[in-house]
């Protein structure tokens, strides 16, 4: 389970809407399953169908959270026109088994956010609790 404050939910949905139709992406920082804040990242693919984080931004985010005693708990990205489920590419490229993978779908009338754990190609849906 991952706990997300309402303001962080609002932040990542706003990020997804702002960048659409390009995929938005970022990290969620926190500790022990409780998210504290979102870190918007640049999608260096600048694509409506793909995303990649910028490695330098990844390290900057990692070091910032380390200094604060926090961890990168999750990576999020948007699906501007498809459902909130990991695509084949999402599953193939989910190399880090320690984090959660959040997807924000804008395909429906209202944004849909879901979280998953992905390890060795196996996807497990993860409950999200909003605070």
């Amino acid at each position, binding site marked *: 389970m991952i706990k997300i404050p309402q303001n962080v939910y609002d932040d990542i949905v706003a990020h997804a809407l702002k960048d659409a139709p390009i995929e938005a992406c970022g990290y969620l920082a926190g500790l022990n399953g409780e998210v504290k804040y979102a870190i918007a990242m640049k999608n260096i693919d600048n694509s409506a169908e793909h995303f*990649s984080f910028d490695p330098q931004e990844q390290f900057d985010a990692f070091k910032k959270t*380390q200094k604060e005693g926090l961890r990168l708990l999750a990576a999020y990205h948007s699906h501007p026109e498809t459902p909130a489920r990991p695509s084949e590419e*999402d599953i193939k*490229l989910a190399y*880090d088994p320690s984090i959660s993978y959040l997807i924000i779908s804008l395909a429906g009338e209202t944004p849909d956010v879901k979280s998953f754990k992905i390890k060795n190609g196996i996807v497990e849906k993860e409950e999200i609790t909003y605070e």
Partner: protein
Amino acid sequence: MKITINGEAKELRDGLSITELLVVENVEMPEMVSVQLNDEFLKQDEYAATIVKEGDDINFLYFMGGGA
């Protein structure tokens, strides 16, 4: 030798290369991580020849990407 790996102080044997360090740290899919040694990116073809030294600060992160 005492080094820092992803923010954690660790003591490991001398003479480890970055390639060996990733094995010791049980990094799955090491070809999909980016490595910074003392805040400088290392290229993958430098891993084997780069020997970790006392006091080094090493961070590695997985490539993060996907598609819709």
